[in-house]
């Protein structure tokens, strides 16, 4: 690479920029403003399904399921009073239930012991009514209520625990966001198609408008309303715990918003302090801050413009972009100020600074972007987005540093400072410390390169061992501190009600009214009963509750047969099956439509499972699919009706459990691919920079070693590889490479001039070295801030990434020079 040619190009570019500075400023301003107008459109998405790509087949299945059956995620309120079947509790529960129905928005249904369906029949009559209405407010009534509740198979683990001490209330919200219709009367009376009155039967399906799922804001409204009432009713006599994934989603979102604000402001503070210490000038603080903040805002605006919401992974973007962007400015400015103070010619100093560091700035930004872009192909959507927009942020920072920064320098009035001006004692001391460090490193690496390299190799081997111990995990619950109420509540409900999340098995009979086939229903009943647990040994998961249309049929059949217990079974005759369903449809309960589709073709079997790390689920999915398919193998052959012969039952599995399992899978497959792509792309860039394949590849060693060590640390200390920590590799690689780029860039130049590697090393340390140390401190602090979060995932991520960054500095001031010493020692005449 013709380094001096590139330098000259940068110099003349900057000259042009300075000449046209006002015009350029206006252009930059206008373009940026246009982009930033998108900012208000930004949204937040902390849902579980938000981790996946929009076109992920598992997510599409899940969406289809929600369109048919509604939202699967529910809010669970667990109550543990002294005595459930006593007037005090019952009355309070009734009031609580009714107030929830009144006040919670976007509500589909509230179910509790108050209104759960109670089917009972005698000689002449069939009754389906709300449970508590069926019993009078007398002691005998309460005793009977107790007896019925505890003995009814449907209620167990749904609304009452097995020991009868805990009862739950289930809140189901709407699946879709419903925009307010201003005047239903007028929309209804329009005789055109969109009205409430369409003039054609077939029109009803043609209104295919874009359905949006319940937004995070609407979910927040639901959670807020529920929690408000919960706080109002909570007391010693009425103890309440709230669980459920909608709540988890909302708490994550609020915590994310708090953290983002905290981190961003802290980052700004740190940057201001360091800029001031380093440059001791107003412009030295102001200009980089402008560059960095504009880069950040532009990235967020880009997300808003492309409709990508801020997610749990992208919440780190603000701190990240600021940390990354600052390096570029610091490098350019440190050269500029020194030159300007020397010769007093501002315009020349600007050109010199940009010329000198332009290539390095571009290279470091591109390598950081490459490290991040390598994740944009990740199967895990939330990580792919971080890759894309993190990379975009790095590019924005580069553009603003190379375009806006010189413009601002040219326009703002700056005072030349004499070189002899007394630096503050803090600055002197910090300079002193840094210089000592750098001198020491230069000395060590030039004179004792072999021990350094050996030491690095040793660390590498230990790290490899650590890596073998690493485990992938995806369990959002563990991100919360252990005493966080939602976490405790979830564990309690898991224990008492045997499960807080669901997996949905969809049984597609293949044709309309296929569910009238008694063989299909019979097989479904057997399957339902047999799925009381999945897996075996340590991996065993108990499912406390399975529900499907079978429950309805069993209840109805029993009620039709004088409530005889032995009649709690599904009918075996087709016409009776059809008629019992018709009967149920007439009782006023709409429970049937939640269990089967309106064609009576597909039935839904819901299994409740406890909340676990996704790894516990991934293996069980296969087993569930297999057992379900096996249950229906004979559905076709033994049917009486010949028209059934050509349809077969297909099984598909969806539900929150699948989303978790898929997230983990996608994570694991993304990681290897993305790390490899990043390593390859960055290697190529290093080769281009140093102009030699051999040197380029060797320079990757100080790049890759820090990440390897950090992964090893994770393995040794049992820190999991999750959606966050898996990003460390690419982020750290992109950032670590910056130091190596600066080192190599300067080392090559000085070696070319002096021919001595040790001189080149010392010279590099004195010029780029200081900037490298300062940016390392700023970057690592920017990540160490995350450790102030309550959330464990951010804590781990921040600490480990900060560690990686510090290790990269040492790799670049110790290992890289050591390697160069060894290489150039033998070959004094190496062509550079």
């Amino acid at each position, binding site marked *: 690479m013709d380094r001096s040619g590139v330098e000259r190009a940068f110099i003349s570019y900057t000259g042009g920029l300075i000449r046209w500075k006002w015009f350029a400023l206006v252009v930059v301003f206008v373009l940026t403003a246009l982009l930033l107008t998108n900012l208000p459109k930004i949204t937040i998405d902390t849902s579980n399904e938000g981790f996946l790509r929009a076109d992920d087949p598992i997510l599409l299945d899940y969406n289809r399921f929600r369109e048919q059956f509604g939202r699967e995620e529910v809010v669970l309120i667990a109550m543990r009073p002294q005595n459930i079947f006593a007037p005090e509790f019952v009355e309070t529960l009734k009031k609580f239930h009714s107030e929830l129905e009144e006040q919670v928005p976007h509500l589909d249904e509230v179910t509790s012991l108050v209104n759960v369906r109670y089917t009972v029949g005698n000689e002449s009559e069939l009754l389906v009514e709300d449970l508590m209405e069926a019993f009078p407010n007398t002691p005998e009534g309460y005793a009977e209520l107790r007896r019925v509740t505890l003995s009814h198979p449907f209620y167990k683990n749904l609304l009452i625990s097995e020991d009868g001490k805990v009862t739950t209330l289930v809140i189901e919200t709407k699946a879709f966001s419903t925009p307010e219709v201003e005047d239903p009367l007028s929309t*209804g009376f329009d005789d055109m198609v969109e009205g409430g*009155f369409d003039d054609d039967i077939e029109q*009803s399906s043609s209104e295919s408008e874009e359905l949006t799922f319940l937004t995070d804001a609407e979910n927040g409204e639901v959670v807020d309303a529920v929690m408000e009432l919960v706080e109002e009713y909570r007391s010693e006599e009425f103890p309440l715990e709230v669980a459920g994934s909608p709540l988890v989603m909302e708490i994550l979102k609020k915590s994310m918003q708090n953290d983002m604000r905290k981190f961003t402001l802290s980052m700004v503070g740190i940057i201001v302090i360091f800029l001031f210490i380093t440059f001791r000038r107003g412009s030295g603080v102001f200009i980089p801050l402008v560059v960095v903040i504009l880069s950040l805002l532009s990235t967020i605006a880009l997300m808003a413009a492309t409709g990508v919401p801020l997610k749990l992974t992208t919440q780190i973007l603000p701190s990240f972009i600021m940390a990354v962007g600052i390096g570029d400015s610091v490098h350019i400015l440190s050269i500029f100020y020194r030159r300007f103070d020397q010769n007093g010619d501002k315009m020349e100093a600007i050109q010199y600074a940009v010329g000198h560091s332009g290539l390095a700035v571009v290279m470091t930004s591109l390598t950081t972007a490459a490290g991040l872009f390598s994740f944009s192909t990740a199967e895990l959507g939330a990580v792919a987005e971080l890759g894309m927009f993190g990379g975009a942020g790095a590019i924005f920072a580069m553009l603003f540093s190379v375009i806006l920064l010189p413009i601002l320098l040219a326009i703002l009035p700056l005072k030349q400072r004499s070189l002899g001006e007394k630096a503050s004692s803090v600055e002197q001391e910090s300079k002193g410390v840094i210089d000592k460090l750098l001198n020491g490193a230069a000395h060590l690496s030039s004179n004792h390169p072999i021990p350094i390299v050996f030491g690095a190799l040793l660390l590498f081997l230990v790290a490899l061992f650590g890596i073998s111990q690493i485990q992938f995990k995806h369990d959002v619950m563990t991100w919360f501190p252990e005493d966080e109420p939602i976490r405790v509540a979830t564990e309690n409900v898991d224990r008492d009600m045997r499960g807080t999340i669901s997996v949905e098995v969809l049984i597609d009979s293949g044709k309309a009214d296929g569910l009238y086939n008694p063989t299909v229903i019979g097989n479904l009943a057997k399957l339902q009963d047999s799925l009381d647990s999945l897996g075996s040994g340590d991996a065993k998961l108990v499912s406390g509750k399975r529900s499907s249309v079978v429950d309805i049929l069993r209840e109805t059949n029993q009620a039709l047969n004088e409530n005889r217990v032995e009649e709690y079974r599904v009918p075996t005759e087709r016409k009776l099956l*059809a008629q019992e369903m018709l*009967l149920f449809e007439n009782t006023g309960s709409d429970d049937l439509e939640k269990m089967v589709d309106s064609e009576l073709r597909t039935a839904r079997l819901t299994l409740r499972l406890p909340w676990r790390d996704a790894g516990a689920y991934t293996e069980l999915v296969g087993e569930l699919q297999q057992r379900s398919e096996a249950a229906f193998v004979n559905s076709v052959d033994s049917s009486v009706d010949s028209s059934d012969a050509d349809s077969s039952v297909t099984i598909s599995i969806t539900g929150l459990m699948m989303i978790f399992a898929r997230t983990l899978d996608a994570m694991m497959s993304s990681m290897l691919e993305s790390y490899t792509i990043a390593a390859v792309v960055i290697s190529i860039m290093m080769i281009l920079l140093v102009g030699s394949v051999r040197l380029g590849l060797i320079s990757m060693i100080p790049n890759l070693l820090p990440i390897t060590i950090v992964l090893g640390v994770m393995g040794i200390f049992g820190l999991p590889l999750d959606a966050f920590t898996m990003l460390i590799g690419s982020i750290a690689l992109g950032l670590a490479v910056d130091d190596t780029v600066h080192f190599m860039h300067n080392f090559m130049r000085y070696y070319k001039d002096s021919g001595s590697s040790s001189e080149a090393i010392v010279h590099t340390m004195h010029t780029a070295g200081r900037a490298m140390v300062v940016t390392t401190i700023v970057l690592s602090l920017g990540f160490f801030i995350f450790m102030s979060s309550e959330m464990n995932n951010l804590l781990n991520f921040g600490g480990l990434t900060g560690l990686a960054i510090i290790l990269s500095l040492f790799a670049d001031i110790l290992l890289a020079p050591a390697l160069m010493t060894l290489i150039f020692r033998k070959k004094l005449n190496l062509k550079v």
Partner: protein
Amino acid sequence: MENMMMKLKKLTVALTITLMSTTILSSLNLAVAAPSARELMEAVNARDDGNNGLMEMEMILIDKKGKQRIRKLKKMSQDRGDDSYSLLFFLSPSDVKDTGFLTYDYDQSGKDDDQWLYLPALKKTKRIANDDKSGSFMGSDFNYSDMSDPDLDDYNFTLMKETKVHGNEVWQIKSVPKSKEIIEETGYRQSVVFVRKDNFVVVRAVRWMESKGKLRYLDLKKLEQIDGVWTPLETTMTTKEGKRTLHKTVIRYSKVRYNQELDESLFTVRRLEKGAN
């Protein structure tokens, strides 16, 4: 000059008297001509909807994806004083053929309807206890409360305005339940009905369901006079949430005949168990 003044005075007085009496008379006219909303609803309830009716009924259930389920029934109805009895038999689909439905709809305020369902596969009749009319009728978009006349004392009626529906002049009347119990019982928080001026038939209605955000739209597509009785031949009921249709039901009547020879014993449980013939 004085003459003229006198004439002018007389003219003025005469004019004033004429004006005043015209105004009074016309306002009286108006007062007489504008009925109260309650009166209108009474007329709707009192409308002759035929006696001893025999007809075939087709019920089409359409889901949000446009998939249809078609049911064919035979219907017989008979008035017993102020009460009305009806008998429904399923003709198709075959799995539910001969399933029968007997309803005694009592006029007396507060008296719950009696309903029996006969399941031929079980050869049993069961009385369905349905004091709660908010449940759906046979899985359709019609509630039980939609199928019978409302108890007018349970509502407050307001005449909103006069407008046109399908080219006919109608009164637009708002009805709001007087208590929460009525809402829970009928499943509707309030309704707006459109009553045709010439025949007191409710040709359109919008009902706000108990579940917030859901509305039901009733629309009479075909109305004909048969044997002097105004008979809705095609009615649709659509359940919507915002602009989104959740479900739709179409009910069509055909071969409608009134004043048939319908024996009283037809409307008994015993007869129910004998089947459609």
